[in-house]
């Protein structure tokens, strides 16, 4: 007979109740761990898709407002600019699905490779993109999703312009998580004119590659100065800042979820404390007997407290393990399924493990200490009078 054995035997007294309480703690800890992976996950996504030496130049009023296409030429003249490419949201829906399921933009094939060298599109494919007017370069995630390969022909129906375009896939962005599609701006311009519309005189963004990372702010100021007091003043920001503001609203949402999770955890603490109190009440006779045998208040408190702590810690460790397994599975499957792509960035790191286990300890600490203290502090004769 040992104290650990006594604690474990008491935990096995009502197996269903122990399992349900442990399950509630496990799920709460798992949920918290998953949420704790979000800020780092979003950072990882941002770091993966963004660069500090790439600038987004767009209308100061917002990215949905256009700027003149001619502005791209002026930007290229700015000192410190290595390359610039004008992009426009095409909003193309793949004909077989009828809705926009991946981001697609018109770009300038002759400039895109210089602005996005980190996308690692092979030079030969970039050359084909310039050679074929109807050429398109597609991210690997979208290629896999639809089973496309280089040389395939597809049709995208624009949800912005009143036309559909037949495209020839000439290249692939070799990033597993990339859903993008680039098509030629000139091809769209000519198609619009052929249908009797005006040409494509505007763009939504100009992406600029800056030569020297230390001169980014200076270059941004110089670009914005070009449009000062015009009808389409520009606002420039680094790609990282652009995505950070995009993710900003998402992080606000994450904060709300974290607050709700905190409240859920508080509920779990109350539930666990109530369960521990019930267990102590049911065992009032036994506790009285132990006290009368000579078990000190400290020994009674420690035994009851250890029960709550062992249960919550075991459940918490399982919850952390479950979160780890879940994010691991998401990472493994993110290469297989386009829908899971960004979720592959969420990882249960060592700090998350520490926070998860600490949370489970806190639950055990708070849920176990109050009933254990209550049971231990009562005079033994008072308890005996009540139960005998």
């Amino acid at each position, binding site marked *: *007979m*040992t*104290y650990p*054995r*006594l604690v474990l*035997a*008491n935990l*096995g*007294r009502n197996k269903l109740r122990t399992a349900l309480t442990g399950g509630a703690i496990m799920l709460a800890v798992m949920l918290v761990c998953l949420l704790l992976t979000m800020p780092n996950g979003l950072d990882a996504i941002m770091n993966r898709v963004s660069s500090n030496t790439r600038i987004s130049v767009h209308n100061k009023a917002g990215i949905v407002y256009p700027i003149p296409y001619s502005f791209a030429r002026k930007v290229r003249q700015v000192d410190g600019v290595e390359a610039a490419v004008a992009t426009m949201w095409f909003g193309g829906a793949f004909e077989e699905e009828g809705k926009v399921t991946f981001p697609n933009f018109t770009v300038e094939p002759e400039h895109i490779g210089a602005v996005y060298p980190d996308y690692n599109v092979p030079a030969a494919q970039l050359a084909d993109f310039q050679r074929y007017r109807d050429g398109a370069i597609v991210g690997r995630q979208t290629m896999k999703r639809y089973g496309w390969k280089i040389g395939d022909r597809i049709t995208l129906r624009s949800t912005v312009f009143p036309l559909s375009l037949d495209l020839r896939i000439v290249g692939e962005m070799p990033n597993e998580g990339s859903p993008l599609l680039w098509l030629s701006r000139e091809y769209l311009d000519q198609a619009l004119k052929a249908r009797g519309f005006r040409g494509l005189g505007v763009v939504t963004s100009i992406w600029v590659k800056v030569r020297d990372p230390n001169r980014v702010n200076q270059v941004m100021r110089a670009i914005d100065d070009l449009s000062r007091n015009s009808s389409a003043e520009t606002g420039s920001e680094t790609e990282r800042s652009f995505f950070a503001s995009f993710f900003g609203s998402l992080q606000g949402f994450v904060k709300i979820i974290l607050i709700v999770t905190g409240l859920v955890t508080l509920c779990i603490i109350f539930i666990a404390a109530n369960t521990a109190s019930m267990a102590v009440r049911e065992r009032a*006779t*036994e506790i009285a*007997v*132990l*006290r*009368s*045998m*000579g*078990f*000190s*208040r*400290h*020994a009674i408190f420690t035994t009851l407290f250890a029960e709550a702590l062992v249960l919550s810690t075991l459940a918490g460790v399982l919850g952390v393990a479950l979160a780890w397994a879940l994010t691991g599975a998401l990472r493994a499957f993110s290469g297989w399924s386009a829908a899971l792509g960004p979720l592959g960035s969420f990882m249960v790191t060592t700090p998350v493990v520490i926070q998860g286990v600490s949370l489970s300890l806190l639950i055990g600490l708070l849920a176990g200490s109050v009933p254990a203290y209550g049971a231990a502090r009562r*005079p*033994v*004769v008072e308890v*005996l009078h009540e139960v*005998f």
Partner: protein
Amino acid sequence: MQPVIAVENVSRLYRRGVEEIHALVDVSLAIPAGLFVAFMGPSGSGKSTLLNLVSGIDRPNTGSVMVAGQRLNDLSEDELAQWRARHVGLIFQFFNLIPVLSARDNVALPLLLTPLDKRERLRRAETALRVVGLEQRAEHSPRTLSGGEQQRVAIARAIVTDPDIIVADEPTGDLDARNAEAVLALLRQLRTDFGKTVVMVTHDPRALRFVDEAYHLDKGVLLEGEAAGRAAEAIRLAAGHSSAGAPGTAP
């Protein structure tokens, strides 16, 4: 003979709301070591209160309780707990074994309060079970034992620490006649074979045949002289045991 239990002018008052209950009034007694004694009396007579005082579970309002050379009045709650662990073995009416532990683990439970190692604790628990004749049932959980067997396990738990006194509160109250006799005989055996002082609270008139001495209480007062004799006779008559012999005549 030097008394192992000396109670002098002890009174115990409980307050229940505005009501005052005089559970014991100026009680004095001395019990020599190695005797088997019973506290008897009707409900509310104060016998359980007296048992709680001599076992260090409760403390008197006035008077002195000296057990095994220790004045219990002077000890704090935690010191009393330590003292009980060393000097007292407790037996309850409803056995009060821990249902999730085996008979052996129940017996070994008080040994957690000693510095003995695990192997020695196990050895002593098995020895105690052998004394009560249940060594074959060591692995059984209390649920699978009869009432009599459970009370024998409780007795093994009470003696496993080799205490100075064994205190039993209505140990036959929840047993049939045959098991009650067996438990009383076992308590008697602890006194005769191991020299233990056994103090028991009981309503059971059969106990008179096993104990060395019976103390009768009524309304918190210890009866003495003729009053005690009348109380003992009334118990004998009520149980139809008038020819069973005087108190202290063991079978």
